[in-house]
């Protein structure tokens, strides 16, 4: 395991035959996906294709019906798994930010550091400040969410995930709720993260960002992975007709 240079590195996150039904609806219908270290996997697909559910199954915010979710070598579906410990390794960024409105930016970022990782206030705040600085909000640590713009709120959301020192960060449509002029600041932070070597899974409609930053694009429809490949392959020369139709619709929609 230590001579990782010789063989391809083990995936940080691996989904095996993942199934999830909402009543009669098959939201995830046998997903297999492996995310390797430092990789940015970009997930696209029509609404209702199961993208968000896929992300939410990775840290079991949503319970998969069957299949395996292997994080850093351990199947977290196994009974007796300490989920709260696993979730320290998986950061998550939400579409609607979900910042705690009764806490400052720093309070949002340090809560889990103090209450789950058990850091003393000083140590937690030092790490929280570093995380806020990383997203360019060092001067906003005492601001409450309602005093921040949407873009700033989402960057605090990213800092909250980063502060825990995760091995992978999941982004669930991180810019969909933002006014267009605020999207850039969030994407810039994500680009920096990628450059710094963070492993990321991103569900989004920002195709330009995918072209520039993604290592792999996954197209989902009807709870299955229809096609995956490099951004050039998926956007330039998709094999499947469904992928082509979706990609052309999406690029038109975004000018």
């Amino acid at each position, binding site marked *: 395991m230590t001579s990782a240079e010789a063989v391809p590195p083990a995936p940080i996150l691996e989904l095996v035959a993942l199934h999830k039904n909402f009543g009669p609806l098959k939201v995830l219908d046998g997903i297999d996906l492996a995310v390797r270290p430092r990789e940015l996997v970009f997930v696209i697909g029509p609404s209702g294709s199961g993208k968000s559910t896929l992300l*939410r199954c990775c*840290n079991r*915010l949503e319970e998969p019906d069957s299949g395996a979710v292997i994080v850093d070598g351990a199947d977290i579906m196994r009974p007796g798994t300490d*989920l*709260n*410990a*696993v*979730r*320290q390794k*998986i*950061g*998550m960024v*939400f579409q*609607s930010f*979900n*910042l*705690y*409105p*009764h806490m400052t930016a720093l309070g949002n970022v340090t*809560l*889990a550091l103090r*209450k*789950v990782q058990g850091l003393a206030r000083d140590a937690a705040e030092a790490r929280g400040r570093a995380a806020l600085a990383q997203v360019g909000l060092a001067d906003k640590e005492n601001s409450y969410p*309602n005093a921040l713009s949407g873009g700033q709120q989402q960057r605090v*959301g990213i800092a*909250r*995930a980063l502060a*825990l020192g995760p091995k992978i960060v999941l982004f669930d449509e991180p810019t969909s709720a933002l006014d267009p002029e605020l999207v850039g600041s969030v994407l810039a932070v994500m680009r920096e993260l990628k450059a710094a070597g963070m492993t990321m899974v991103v569900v989004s409609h920002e195709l330009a960002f995918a072209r520039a930053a993604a290592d792999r694009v996954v197209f989902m429809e009807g709870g299955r992975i229809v096609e995956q490949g490099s951004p050039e392959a998926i956007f330039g020369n998709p094999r499947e007709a469904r992928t082509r139709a979706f990609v052309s619709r999406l690029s038109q929609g975004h000018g």
Partner: protein
Amino acid sequence: MDNGLERLVFAFFNAEIAAAWAPKILEGMWVTILVSLAVVATGLALGLALAALRAYRIGPVDVAIVAFVDILRALPPLVVIIILFFAFPYLDLPMSAFTATWLSLSLVLAAFAEEIWWAGILAVPRGQWEAARSTGLGFGATLGYVVLPQAVRMTVPPLVNRVIAVTKGTALGSVVALSEIVSQASSAASLAGNPTPLTLGAAAYLAIFVPVVVLGRWLETRFAWKR
């Protein structure tokens, strides 16, 4: 006309009688404040505990809590006080007037507070739970640090109104001879043969509760929820 006014002043604002009975009314005021504080502390603590417990959604516990809340919302507080004071001694559980009043009103306040806070917990968006759980906070920690603080804050106005309404009910303690303001004032009035002690009693209530009502109005604006 003049004569009527004189009579009114003599009856309700008799300085001599007021001076004579003021110490009794002050004693009653002290008891009223003591019971009120005890009721607020116990009632709110129990209400919060029940609301938190209900968040765990354990079937039989839920049913028990809902039944408790329904019964204490439907029963007049005076009936609860009288049951505890007059009926429990038959079980060899005699209660002092203080205990009966305090316990009854605490239970009533707890029932209302539980319902208000539970509504608040339900009103906290799901995303708050998910964000907290995604950072590894457990159910209890999420409830305690993330959800309850928001639920409590957004329910300040109805809660303040309810706290005022229930603590005013300490006057009902007079029915079981708790020596609070009403008891002291009405026995003083009949001993003095003059209603001035009643005026004093009314003034004592205003002295206690007007500040609370004003504080309540201030709290309502202070905690008006911004998102």
